[in-house]
């Protein structure tokens, strides 16, 4: 009897596993197609490409762009911009999230409201003013300008994620530290930040992903080719290389590589970031 039930369970598990793998393969097919196209022989995308590439080559990955610049130097621009944005985000968002998560003041609700509105705001709303102001301030063609602009997306998001983490800390922990004679800033640095560490990792990874993928602000604020970020280069290449799909798909793969690496190491934090930032608010 028991073994019969176990057998039934085993069969049902196997069926669901097969369905699950089938669904996953179908859903992720675009990624498979991108990667296999990027390692095909140049020009083989014109003929009827087979499902599995016949030969493998990586020349598209070391190709230089039209301007004789290696794709990896644009990669470095993107690294600089997303790291800078993330550092700026973390420095500003952690104390702010702590304040609105822990203090019981009347002013807290309107501040949360501002961050929630900012999180929903379309970038095009502030694009024109930022372009006009940055033109006057000399922040066009400057990575700092893109970082400041990208942070309009990452800071509200991080504050809203981190607030929920700070809110969930038990009051006793804070009080114990204060009774031990620690000042409010020491308590914040030595107790609050370590306790919310998972939340901080989440905010960092979300900021990295969001700033890595930004195109609108780089498109508007960076006109000098050498300063451009990777998403922008992929977009420009689509206009210039039009039919060299193996190169375009190599560029797309390069854009995605850091995302995959982050996914492998930080999956748990990214998923909790999505849920904390959306459902709990």
């Amino acid at each position, binding site marked *: 009897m028991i073994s019969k039930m176990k057998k039934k369970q085993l069969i*049902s*598990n196997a069926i*669901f596993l097969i369905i*699950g793998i089938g*669904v*996953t393969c179908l*859903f*992720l097919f*675009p990624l498979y197609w991108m990667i296999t196209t990027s390692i095909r022989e140049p020009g083989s*995308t*014109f003929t009827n*490409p087979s499902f599995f590439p016949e030969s493998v080559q990586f020349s598209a990955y070391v190709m230089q762009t039209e301007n004789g610049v290696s794709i990896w130097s644009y990669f470095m621009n993107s690294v600089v911009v997303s790291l800078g944005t993330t550092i700026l985000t973390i420095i500003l968002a952690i104390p*702010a999230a*702590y*304040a609105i998560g822990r*203090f019981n*003041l009347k002013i807290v609700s309107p*501040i949360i409201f*501002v*961050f*929630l*509105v*900012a999180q*929903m705001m*379309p*970038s*095009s*709303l*502030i*694009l*024109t*003013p930022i*372009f*006009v*102001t940055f033109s006057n301030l000399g922040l066009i063609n400057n990575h700092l300008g893109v970082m400041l602009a990208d*942070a*309009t997306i990452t*800071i509200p998001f991080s504050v809203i994620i981190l607030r929920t983490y700070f809110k969930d800390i038990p009051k006793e922990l804070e009080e114990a530290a204060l009774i031990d004679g620690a000042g*409010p800033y020491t308590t914040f640095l030595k107790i609050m930040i370590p306790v919310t560490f998972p939340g901080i990792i989440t905010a960092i990874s979300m900021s990295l992903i969001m700033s890595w*993928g930004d*195109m*609108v602000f780089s498109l508007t604020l960076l006109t000098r080719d050498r300063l451009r970020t990777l998403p*922008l280069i*992929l977009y420009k290449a689509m206009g210039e290389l039009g039919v060299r*799909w193996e190169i*375009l*798909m190599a560029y*797309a793969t390069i*854009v*995605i590589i850091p*995302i*995959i690496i*982050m*996914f492998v190491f930080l999956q748990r934090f*990214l*998923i909790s970031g999505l*849920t904390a930032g*959306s*459902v*709990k608010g």
Partner: protein
Amino acid sequence: MKSKLKTRNTLLFLSFVLPAAIYMILMVIFPIIYNIAISFRDINLMNFAQGGSSFVGTEVYKTIFKDPLLWISMKNTLVFTIWCLIFQFPIGFAMAMLFSRHFPGAPSLRGINFIPWMIPMVAVAGIFKYMFNADIGIINRMLMGLHLIQEPIQWLAYGNTAMAAVIIANVWKGVPFNMILLATALTTLPEDIYEAAIIDGATPVQRFFKITVPLLKPAMLSVLTLGFIYTFKVFDLIYVMTSGGPGSSTEVLSSLAYRFSFSEYNFSKGAAVANILFILLMIVGLFYIYLVNKEDKESKGGRR
């Protein structure tokens, strides 16, 4: 004594929140106000270095409201958003149900399917532009291989098919978002209710509509409103895949605002369109904030 403590508390609060508050005032609040101001003046490439022209009243709005492009873009934005939700929500829900089952490997598979959500929109647009290519795209090849079509479809050359292509690309990126949020909500459902229902002889369909759906209602509402907001402000995908074309058949409000500001360098018209987009978004956005506040209050009541 009490008020002194309160002042001290407020000062402490401000010392934590001020850096971010200053940033938000300079980079978000000031630009929003500035954007409103620009839309009531006439600023273009010729005069923006000098600060633009003086106040022109509602002239800019009068002009764009007469422009059929605005109405076409508004309709396209709505059509795009609604079709995206119609597909991504049920697909995401179905995948959430599948990967919430306790079979070996389910959590890993759910995790891997999360990847498309993290991929930059430009890359998504690039991949799908390639797959929808009329001559060498895999989608036409597959459809012809299955004998569903005789001739290759020129996907991005016609209005309706171009719209379908951008919707499909966006759905691919949107499904994981729906799947993860709904799967997380599914794991919070109490299992004993289901066990009791099974004992009472409820069919799987009954259990789904009588237990799962009602219990998941808050999460579903939240996913749909957020999905609406994220989809309604779409820009990168359209800009890269079709740049609003062919003609203006995939032009949305974001891309129209960008076109006015940065192709025609008519900053006032661009600002005005962006303001209209923002007002439309805020109607849904305020509803979402209301949901969040409600949940906040409920969770507070439960904990303390």
